[in-house]
């Protein structure tokens, strides 16, 4: 009963956060001086089309209708929220008219998600493993070496690292492709291997940069835990080092890391702008980039709404699963 109340309360907060985010998203562009309808009319006029006043009025009306700009602000707002929450319809893309925004997003999503999920998970597992050992046995040479690598790589600006990787492995040694080109029939082995082959370099660039952060944060956790009384007690119980590490240190050190991981996964819906531009990778980041460059309002609204929803969902998922992994939350 208490659990149900907790979940219900959490769902309400979740919906409120999304509606709040979408509200900001709705009003901010309308506070700006640009009117998309007038901008479009100007574009049409600039292309040299001749229209008389009634034609212009009719075009203005139909454009306003297409863009969802009819009626009062409140009516527009209500229609906007209803449309997104109930149908997930963001309208057609303006730059790739008339392809629906949703279709563009759905095409880009698997790319971004496949790339970022894989590289984030690899970096998470690797980073936590190394950081845990480095924190537990700071005097061991292997831990020192791995930690040294992580600390060396961590502060390198991402775009420099990615650029260097790209130059070295695609241009100088020409091992990996410079831009992403996928070949092969749908669902064939060729296609899969081509995707993997094209993703190795972008994935590696992300892993290398993010890895260091996980190492440093879990190491700090671990060295703090080492002085905890329950670790000392476990040692005085005569438990083996491995057992203390796996049953006492690891579960306690990993808790905050799980929170960060879930947030990272939520942020994935922003795509990874620099990665996707540098490696010409057809993901969400590239889509947002295009939307900004082309002034494609619908596409921009669509991608950002999705990102708001994704982060809110990730936060809610953490809140829902956290009681399962931390008993101290459960009984409050």
């Amino acid at each position, binding site marked *: 009963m208490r659990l149900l109340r907790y979940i219900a309360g959490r769902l309400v907060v979740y919906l409120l956060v999304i509606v709040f985010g979408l509200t900001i998203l709705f009003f901010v562009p309308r506070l700006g001086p640009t009117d998309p309808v007038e901008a479009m009319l100007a574009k049409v006029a600039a292309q040299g089309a001749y229209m008389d006043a009634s034609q212009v009025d009719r075009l203005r009306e139909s454009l306003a209708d297409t863009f969802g700009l009819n009626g009062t602000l409140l009516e527009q707002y209500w229609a906007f929220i209803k449309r997104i929450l109930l149908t997930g319809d963001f309208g057609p893309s303006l730059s790739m008219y008339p392809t629906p925004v949703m279709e563009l997003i759905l095409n880009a999503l698997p790319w971004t998600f496949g790339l970022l999920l894989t590289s984030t998970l690899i970096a998470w597992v690797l980073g936590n493993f190394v950081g845990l050992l480095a924190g537990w046995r700071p005097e061991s040479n292997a831990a020192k070496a791995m930690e040294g690598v992580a600390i060396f790589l961590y502060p390198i600006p991402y775009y420099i690292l990615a650029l260097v990787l790209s130059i070295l492995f695609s241009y100088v040694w020409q091992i990996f492709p410079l831009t992403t080109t996928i070949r092969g029939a749908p669902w064939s082995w060729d296609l899969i291997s081509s995707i993997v082959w094209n993703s190795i370099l972008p994935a590696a660039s992300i892993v290398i940069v993010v890895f260091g952060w996980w190492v440093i944060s879990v190491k700090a956790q671990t060295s703090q835990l080492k002085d*905890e*009384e*329950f670790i000392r007690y*476990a040692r*005085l*119980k*005569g438990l083996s080092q491995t057992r203390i590490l796996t049953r006492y240190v690891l579960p306690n050190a990993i808790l905050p890391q799980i929170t960060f991981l879930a947030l990272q996964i939520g942020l994935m819906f922003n795509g990874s702008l620099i990665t996707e531009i540098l490696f010409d990778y057809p993901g969400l980041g590239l889509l947002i980039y295009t939307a900004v460059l082309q002034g494609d309002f619908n596409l921009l609204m669509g991608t950002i709404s999705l990102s708001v929803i994704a982060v809110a969902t990730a936060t809610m998922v953490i809140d829902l699963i956290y009681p399962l992994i931390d008993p*101290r939350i459960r009984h409050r």
Partner: protein
Amino acid sequence: MIALENAVVGYGPDKAFIAAVDDVTITIGDNEIVGIAGESGCGKSTLLRALYGDFTHGLRQRGGEINARFTDAGTGTTVEKRGANLSELWWDQISYVPQGSMSVLNPLMKVDKQIIDGLPKREKHGSRADLRKRIANFLKGLGLEESVLEAYPHQLSGGMRQRVLVAIAAFVNPRLILADEPTTALDVVVQKRILLMMVEIQRRLKNTLVLVSHDLGVHYQITDRLAIAYAGKIVEIGPTQKIFAAPSHPYTQALIAALPRVGEKGQRSGLEGRPPSLVKPPQGCRFAARCPEAQDICRAQSPELKMRSADRPVACHFR
């Protein structure tokens, strides 16, 4: 049986060694409750760590002997260990009760798992369900509900947590239990209950309990013998009742004299001054500076802990 013989235990390198336990000799026999009392910094916790063989975090033995000999209650076999090798007997022949602060148990592990974790093989026989049943019965015998097993540490009150810690150490069925200030953070009602529980366990297991506390009241209630520590030395050992009835060493006398009595009006007088630094201890008797009976010999020569009567070793030139 566990014995220290002229043991010197402390911290730091040889050149700057700080002997928190300095030339201490004490024998703790089987089937008795021994208390170690003294003020903060007198070395009583270090003494306990030495008895446990916990030579980590910079603690080391620099001289003397630490010997233990235990006869297994079940098999009747005898094991002997010295110094740091005592750690081979942890959670087997020796167990330990820490002060039950909030963070002494793993916050992510249920109590039953924390009892089972570290148990010696001889207590682990049978199926998991069987083991759990035995633990539950054991807890019930100590007045703890079975539901405690399913609890996480944060769900227990301070007194409950301390009783769980005592139960964890006792379920091992060891020959020696060392307890470090087990009741210090608790109110007197809970304190009493835990002390009685510890006595009950000792009577049942017929093993040895060593209890470190600065609270003389605790020692008065449960210990058979009492050792008084002062500035890294033991100044007096004897049957608890006799020490309270007739303290011999001037320091012990001052301690007992400072205890309030029920119905008393006014304030008791304490001792002037403070214990000497262990970094550079005085050459003679360490209590000389505060002792009302001090003479020249006290400042020149350190008194040995010698038998002054049948069961009362005292370290004082004038006893």
